[in-house]
């Protein structure tokens, strides 16, 4: 086979996706797929060597992302992707460590880790697919479920006040925050690219339909109908006050880049403080010894 022919056989994202694991487990018209595609494109665009990118996921439908990317990828326990990623990053600061998980995994069972990673400004990019529901376990309410939405554990409508993750993380100290819907393919890819290149804790929220459970239970049409609804009912407001971007049931969604600020990362703070206190005695040690220089960021 000629090289030219080989190339036509390949999908442009074959380098990043594990084609040997296809077909994937996600339902038709689930929003996770587009978010993964945006991520793969964003990674390519950053030109970070693929060998230097690690993806860590928790548990759930989005938690399966780690299994489909052809990168060093770790499918961990429910809620614990962020602490795992923290260890990975601190052991090898050269790595670009990405956490890819769902709203339930990151903000319910993993909520404590989410806020502390943002507080520390740990150098991680967190991609949160927010579909307002637990998909893998069959459509239960999440801390993000909007009021009145029907889920298998709120059969008469959800009533707990939901998290506005943007407000939460702004208060904790994240360096970069953006939100798009899964149909804002170009803008979502742009934000992911920016987030990946931003030192410190970056957070990209992708509002996505769960077609099988959320859309069906709430009679919102197919996943694609809902994806389109989210997109068409979104309002771009870059720099919006995160306190003002709550999401209500089937109402307009404010999207955009909300936060982009400079804060020292955990590693920088750790080094600066030890330098101040210990001077020359401080031995900045990057655990990884495998060839290649370690960034001093």
């Amino acid at each position, binding site marked *: 086979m000629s090289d030219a022919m080989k190339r036509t056989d390949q999908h442009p994202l074959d380098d990043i996706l594990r084609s040997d694991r296809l077909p994937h487990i996600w339902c038709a018209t689930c929003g996770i797929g587009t978010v993964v595609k945006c991520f793969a494109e964003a990674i390519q665009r950053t030109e970070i060597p693929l060998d230097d990118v690690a993806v860590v996921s928790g548990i759930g439908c989005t938690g399966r992302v780690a299994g489909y990317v052809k990168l*060093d990828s770790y499918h961990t326990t429910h809620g614990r992707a962020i602490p795992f990623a923290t260890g990975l990053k601190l052991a090898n600061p050269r790595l670009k460590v990405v956490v890819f998980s769902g709203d339930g995994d990151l903000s319910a069972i993993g909520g404590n880790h989410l806020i502390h990673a943002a507080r520390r400004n740990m150098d991680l990019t967190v991609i949160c697919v927010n579909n307002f529901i637990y998909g893998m376990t069959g459509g239960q309410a999440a801390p993000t479920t909007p009021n009145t939405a029907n889920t298998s554990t709120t059969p008469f409508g959800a009533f707990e006040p939901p998290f506005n993750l943007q407000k939460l993380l702004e208060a904790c100290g994240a360096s970069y925050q953006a939100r798009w819907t899964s149909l804002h393919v170009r803008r979502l890819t742009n934000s992911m690219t920016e987030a990946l290149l931003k030192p410190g804790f970056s957070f990209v929220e992708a509002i996505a339909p769960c077609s099988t459970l959320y859309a069906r239970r709430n009679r919102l049409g197919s996943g694609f109908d809902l994806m389109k609804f989210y997109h068409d009912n979104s309002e771009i407001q870059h720099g919006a006050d995160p306190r003002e971007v709550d999401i209500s049931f089937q109402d307009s969604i404010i999207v955009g880049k909300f936060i982009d600020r400079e804060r020292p990362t955990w590693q920088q703070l750790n080094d600066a403080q030890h330098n101040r206190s210990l001077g020359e005695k401080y031995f900045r*040690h990057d655990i990884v010894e495998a060839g290649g220089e370690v960034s001093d960021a």
Partner: protein
Amino acid sequence: MEKADSKRVLTGSHYLDGDHACTEGALAAGCNFIAGYPITPSTEVVERYSRRIPAIGGTFIQMEDEIASITAVLGAVWGGAKAMTVTSGPGFSLMMENIGLAAMLETPCVIVNVMRGGPSTGLPTMVGQADVMQARWGSHGDYEIIALAPQSPQEAFTLMIDAFNLAERYRLPVMVMLDECIGHMTEKVVIPEACEIEIRPRRISTKEKGEYLPYEIGADMVPDMAHAGEGHRYHITGLTHDERGYPAMDAEVHDKLVRRLCDKVREQADDIIMLDEDGMDGAEIVLISYGITSRVARASIEATRAAGIKVGSLRLQTLWPFPEKRIGELAGKVKAFVVPEVNYGQISLEVERCAAGRAQTLLVPHMGGGVHDPAVITRAIEEAAK
């Protein structure tokens, strides 16, 4: 084996408590990452580490809880670190899910548990030995771990090095089960020259990029590892997985995986287990003990030997895997096992299982908060000898 790095070894004679000796053992073993959360009576281990590590090279991070601590340790190991965490009963309970993940992903790491009185918050500042079953069975599913129990600060130092070496050899979590008394007792600790300390390097795959399979095994059933960033671009998961590390959820793959996770330890048990025996020749009674209780029982052993009872002593430096074979052998020769422990009967149950009715097992429980009165153990030995 390699030699320890002299920069990390505090060679000389010191006066250290068990917790601090533990830190020095970890440093000598090459531990360059600790994630921890404060909990009595173990906190001194990480306090000393946070003071020592900046000038040596390595990372200490205080996490938001024990769940985050153990999980950060796992991440750090896959990123290339030699890592451990340190806790006590309540924190140990919180770590259990991810200790299971460590076993499943075959992540070499060390967990120090300085045991206090439980259940629940129990006796935070006082001794207990009631987490020894939890060390073995605390996470869900079938798996094996290794657990060690030092009886002095000196031994805390040496067993920490063994713990790291065993973790690397078998790729699993190794637990070092101190108890509050050992953790807080101060004694002379002699730290040898770095060149006298053997360190087992990580089993790193030498496969070319694209050839590496995370769970491909050789004769000893233990796979070689690759760290993130080495170019293998592999996937691993806590789901039941095949050699490629890919989820493969069927009974056949599961059977093979679970057997291997257990058998890689069970089949090497003779190599792993460390026992300290004395007076076994012609013994009619064998006292089985570990940790602080071994020290307390010494007086009872001496007293009963002086009174003419033939008492052997079997001290468990390795709690898990359990020395089934040795206890089985002894059961055929002795009249009874006497098992004092600072709990309401844990290791005694294992002894009873291994004795299988061929020798009597006599538990001498003590609920915690203090150690046994040696007189109570003496009476138990006398009783068993009757």
